[in-house]
C-alpha cells in the first residue's frame, strides 16, 4: 500500500530489462562463468519438454539446479564435447517484457525470446516465451528461476546443447 513517504522501489523496470539484455549478451558471447554469477545459489533452470501424461514426474529438456547447471557449463567448455565442436554462433533477442515489481517480493519478468543459431552451415531460429524470477540482493539482481518454453519443445530437435 503506497503512502507519500514510500521509498522508490529498489529495482526499476529498466534495471530488469538491462538484466535480461546482459544475460543474453553473456550467453551470446559464451561468457559462461560470468553468466553463472547471475544465478542465486538455490535456483532452477527449466526448459519443459512436450506434454506427457498428466502424471508426475514428467521429463523436461532441461531441469537443472545450480549444481547441475555448473556441470552443464563445465561440459560446454570442455574441448571433447563434440556436439559443441565447433561451438554454434548465436544471437538472442529478448523483448516484449511484462514485468511485475513488488516491494519485498521476487520480480517476475515474462518476455519473448528469439534465438538464431548458426553451426556448420545451418541456421536455426528458436522462439520461446521466457519467465525469469529474480531477486535483488546487495544491489544486484539474481536469477531464482529461468523457465524457457520453446515453441519447438514437442518437435524433434537436433542439438540443444547451447543454452536456450
Amino acid at each position, binding site marked *: 500500500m503506497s503512502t507519500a513517504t514510500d521509498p522508490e522501489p529498489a529495482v526499476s523496470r529498466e534495471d530488469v530489462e538491462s538484466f535480461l539484455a546482459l544475460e543474453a549478451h553473456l550467453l551470446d558471447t559464451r561468457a559462461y562463468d560470468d553468466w553463472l554469477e547471475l544465478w542465486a545459489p538455490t535456483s532452477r533452470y527449466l526448459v519443459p*519438454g512436450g506434454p506427457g*501424461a498428466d*502424471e508426475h514426474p514428467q*521429463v523436461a529438456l*532441461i531441469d537443472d539446479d545450480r549444481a547441475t547447471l555448473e556441470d552443464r557449463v563445465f561440459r560446454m567448455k*570442455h574441448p571433447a564435447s563434440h556436439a559443441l565442436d565447433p561451438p554454434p554462433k548465436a544471437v538472442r533477442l529478448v523483448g516484449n517484457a511484462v514485468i511485475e515489481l513488488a516491494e519485498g517480493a521476487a520480480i517476475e519478468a515474462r518476455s519473448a525470446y528469439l534465438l538464431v543459431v548458426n553451426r556448420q552451415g545451418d541456421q536455426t531460429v528458436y522462439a520461446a516465451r521466457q519467465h525469469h524470477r529474480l531477486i535483488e540482493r546487495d544491489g544486484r539482481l539474481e536469477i531464482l528461476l529461468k523457465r524457457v518454453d520453446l515453441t519447438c519443445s514437442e518437435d524433434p530437435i*537436433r542439438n540443444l546443447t547451447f543454452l536456450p
Partner: protein
Amino acid sequence: MSTTAMVAGGYEELVLRDRVHSRIFTDPAVYAEELVNIFEGNWVYIAHESEVAHRGDYVIRHIGRQPVIVVRSREGVRVHFNRCRHRGTALCNRPAGNTNFFRCPYHGWTYDNDGKLVGVPYPSGYGPDFDKSEFRLEAAPYVDSYRGFLFASVASPSSSLTDWLGPRVREIIDAFADVSPTGRILARAGVNRTVFRGNWKYVGMDGYHFNFTHKSINALNEHHGKPPMEEFQETAPGQMWDYGNGHCRLDHDELRKGSHTDEMTERIRAMEGGAEYLAELQSRTGDRMALTLSRSHDPHLGVWPNLQLLGYHIRLIRPLGPDRTEVIAFPTLLEDAPTALNEARVARHQLLFGPAGFVQPDDSELFERNQLGLQAAVNPWIFIGRGLDRERVHDDGAISSHVTDETTQRGQMKMWLRQMTRNSGVRDEHGD
C-alpha cells in the same frame, strides 16, 4: 518384384564377415527396400500399452511409412491404420489424445475405437446395399505384446512374437519390468524427441565408443573426484551379446555385482518408502533381486530393428530417410513404486538423454559426422571386425564377446542381410 536386381551383385556382396559396404547406410534405393523388407516385413515395436492406459487413449505411431493409431478400446488395445476408409484422409492429426470416436474432419465418417464404421452423413446417397461393416478401419494384421511392449507386423511375421524375441531377450525385458511392484512399467513420464542427419542403423549397441564419444562425461567425473566410468574400459568385465534375430545387448551384469548393486540398493533404501519397496522386491525375486535391480538400471538391450532399452527408458528408432532418423525416448516409471524412486529415474534420464542431455547429443553429432564421412565412398568398406577372434558361441546359438567388441554390429548386420534377401522366412501376404 526382384529386389536384388536393384543392387548389382546382390546384398550378399555388401555384408561380409567383418565389414559392410557403406552403401547400405547411404543409398536411397537400399533404404526404400529396408522399409519394405524390415519395417513393413516383420515385427516392429510400436508402443507400450501403458501409453494408452485409459479407454479412448490413443497415440500415433508408424510401422515403416504406415501411420497407425494405437488406441485402447473397450475390448483392448487396437492398432488401426490412420486412414479414413472413404477417401483416405488421416483421421488423427495430433500425436496423442483421448477420444471415443474417430470422426473424419473431411466428410464426417465416424468410427468407434474398435475401428467399426458407426456413421456416415447423408447415408441415403449410398443406396440400400451399402454395408458399413465393409468399411471398418483397416487394422494392422499382426499385433502382439510382451510385458506391455506392443509389436506389430504388416507382413506375415517370420515367427510368433515370443519366438521372435527368444528367451534371452524376454529375460532382460522381464528384469526391466519386474522392478515394478506390479510388474508393470509406465511409459507415462513424457517424451524426448531427437533427430539426426544420419542412418538409423548407427543407433546404439556400441560398446567401444564411450570413452571417446563421451569423453566429456569422464572429464566431468574426474572434475568431481570420481573415477572414470568402468563399464567400457579395455579391462572391463562386461560382455556383449548377439542373441540372434538381430537382437543384442551390452551386458554389465558382472561389473555391477557386489558394490555397484549394493550402492544402488542403499540409495533406494534411503528414499521415503524405499525400505518397503525393497522388501517387496526381495519377496518377489528372492535370490535374483540383485541381478534384477542391476539389469533394470540399464538393460542396454537392442530388439531389432527399432526398439532399445537403455537406462530407464524405452528408445524407439524411427527412420525418416537414408540420412535422417528420429530417436524417441520414453522414460519409464514403476507402477506403485515410491514417488522418490520414480523422480530419481526421470531426473537421471533427463540429465543424460534427449537433445540437451549430457550424453545423447554427442552420439547424434558423431552419427552425423559418420554420415558425412561415408560420402567418401571410393573405399566403401566399414570395418566391424573387432573381437572376431575372441567370440564364444553358446549352446543356443547366442554369441558373446568383450563389451568393447563389435559382435553386436555383426549380429545386426546378419539379420539385416537375412531380411533384405528375404531369407528370414518372411512371407508377404500376397505370396511374393
